[in-house]
Each structure stands twice: as structure tokens, then as C-alpha cells.
């Protein structure tokens, strides 16, 4: 029988999910933090480009448009090195979303283990609407073909 996966996962499944999150997080951190840090712009140096090529965004490669996630790998790379302004320059969503995602993941697992809600649902609805509007606004602004919006596009 098909089981509804979103209502109250089994404990073992919740643990597996947590393991997947942690594994993905450590893998991303490992790849990004292991890159050479020579020069002001480590991710852009030719030595880096030759050693390891971060795959390009498929959406950007195919359509030429910028997605809200474009530049997020480089933004994470700068964030790991503590260059917050560079991180914001490449993708303004990564830095503000990290605390939201961390709190959200912890809340999710708290709920799945104790089966109690900490915050009312209305709060969640507003948060999801806020994030949706932020993402849509960023996508819209990035794809306006005008010079004055270059600041929000990731540099090549």
C-alpha cells in the first residue's frame, strides 16, 4: 500500500534523512574547502579551473538565463573562507538562507521525534511565502537585460 511519506515519518526514516542531510553538507563543505586559496579569487584561478571544474548550472547553460541558484557554489566557497561581501555579490540568497535552513532542519527533526509543534502553522505559511517572494524577486531582477542590474548577476 502506498504510504503517505509527509505525515510523521518512521523514526528510522527520519534518522536516514538526517544522515543524508549531514552527508551532503559535509561533501559540499569538503569539496569547497579543499580548493587552493591562492590569490584573491581562489575559485576563479586557472589552477583551480584545471584541477577541478565545478559543473555549470544546467539551466543557465541551456537557456542563458540566470536562475536564483546561479553563483551559489561560489558564494558558499567565499562564505567558507569568511568573505561575506563576496558571498553576497555572487548569490545574495545563500547567506540569509543558511540560518533559516538550519533552524528549519532542527525544527523538522524535533517535530518528527516528539510529534509536537513548536510554532503555529501560520508562522510557517508566512515564512514560506516570504522565501517564495524573495526567490521570485531575485529571478526577476537577475534576468532584466539592463546594465543597472549587473550587480545582482554573478560575475562570469
Amino acid at each position: 500500500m502506498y504510504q503517505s511519506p509527509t505525515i510523521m515519518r518512521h523514526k528510522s526514516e527520519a534518522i536516514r534523512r538526517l544522515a543524508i542531510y549531514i552527508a551532503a553538507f559535509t561533501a559540499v563543505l569538503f569539496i569547497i574547502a579543499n580548493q587552493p586559496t591562492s590569490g584573491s579569487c581562489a575559485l576563479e584561478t586557472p589552477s583551480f579551473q584545471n584541477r577541478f571544474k565545478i559543473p555549470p548550472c544546467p539551466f543557465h547553460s541551456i537557456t542563458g538565463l540566470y536562475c536564483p541558484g546561479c553563483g551559489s557554489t561560489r558564494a558558499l566557497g567565499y562564505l567558507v573562507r569568511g568573505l561575506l561581501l563576496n558571498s553576497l555579490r555572487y548569490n545574495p540568497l545563500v547567506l540569509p538562507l543558511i540560518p533559516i535552513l538550519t533552524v528549519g532542519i532542527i525544527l523538522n527533526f524535533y517535530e518528527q521525534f516528539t510529534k509536537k509543534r513548536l510554532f503555529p502553522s501560520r508562522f510557517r505559511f508566512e515564512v514560506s511565502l516570504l522565501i517564495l517572494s524573495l526567490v521570485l524577486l531575485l529571478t526577476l531582477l537577475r534576468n532584466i537585460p539592463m546594465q543597472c542590474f549587473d550587480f545582482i548577476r554573478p560575475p562570469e
Partner: protein
Amino acid sequence: MTTIKHKMMFFYYDMNGIKHGPFQMAELRLLVNEQVVTPRTILETEDGQQELANQFEELFPHEQGKTTAPDINSFETTYCKNCGNEIFDFGKACTRCGHLITSEFTNDTQEPVIDTCLIDSILVTILCCFPLGIVSIIFSSLASGAITRGDYKDAAAKANVAQTLNAVAVILFFMLIFVVWILHSILANMDIHFPIHWSR
């Protein structure tokens, strides 16, 4: 566990509390097959003892040793009162027949915890496939709206859509990125750069 004398007659109470019977054990077994008698049905013996049907080994051989009143904080299975379907979670409604679970064992005032997949959707939008991620964020916010209304069935359905979209997006992303990565390297070697940029 109740010991049963043979040729004993039984009565059962249906969902509305109406007493049916008397039946013999063999007849009750037929009723179990037709899902009229479920593990949660209350049976009454001739001498007036009331028991849940899952306590009878003759009717439900696999149900032995299960708790009669499941603890809300445990992951034991429960059964829908209407159709006998196994319910693995303490949602508000049975997944098969939609019968509202308002038994004495579930706490009605407690809001069921439905994961609206918002975090997964954000991660998919930022790290993977953008168009599908947006759609799944929309679906997860619809799900939280449905929770606000109190429509938990609708919320679960919408959250399921969001989760399925996320899974599809991740699979599509890995397929696409493989193809694009290879194409990108081949074309870059041939000095062809195929992404078109607005600024140029």
C-alpha cells in the same frame, strides 16, 4: 488473550455502537474476510465480556501481543475503525477511506505534524533544478495554508506533491548536469561557448 470455548456465540458492535449477533466463530471469520469485523471492533461474548477483536487468536493470528491502547508517542500501528486499514501515522484521516480518526486512543486536540517539505524545496531551488523547485515551494506553501485552515488531508496531499516534485527535480538535475558537463567540456575544447548572456 482470551480462551474460547467452542460453540460459543459472539456479538459485535459496529462503528455506530449497534450490537449485531449472535455469531459463531466461523461466521465471524467470514466477517473478518469481508472487513466488517476489524482488529479494532469490540466483540462481546455470551457472558457479557467485552474484548477488542484483535485479542482473539482465531480471528487475527498476527495481531497477538500488540497493545490494546497505542501510546501516542510510540510508533505502533493502529487500525482505521471504518475499514480496518493499517494507519502508520497519527494523522486525522485514514489514508484509504478518509474516515476521520476520532477514537479514544488519538488525542483530537493535537495538531498532526505534517512535513510541508519547505526546506527540501528551498534546497532544490537554490542547489538544483530551478523551475521545479519554485513549483514545489508553491505547493509546500499551499500545504501550510491548508494546515492553517485545518484541512490536514489536503495538506498531506499537497506536501506529497511537493516531495515528489523535489525527487523528480533532483533526479533530473543529476541527469542534466552529467550531459551538460560533458557537452560543456567538449565544446570548450573546440572553443565554442554555448551559453548566451544577456550582457553580451
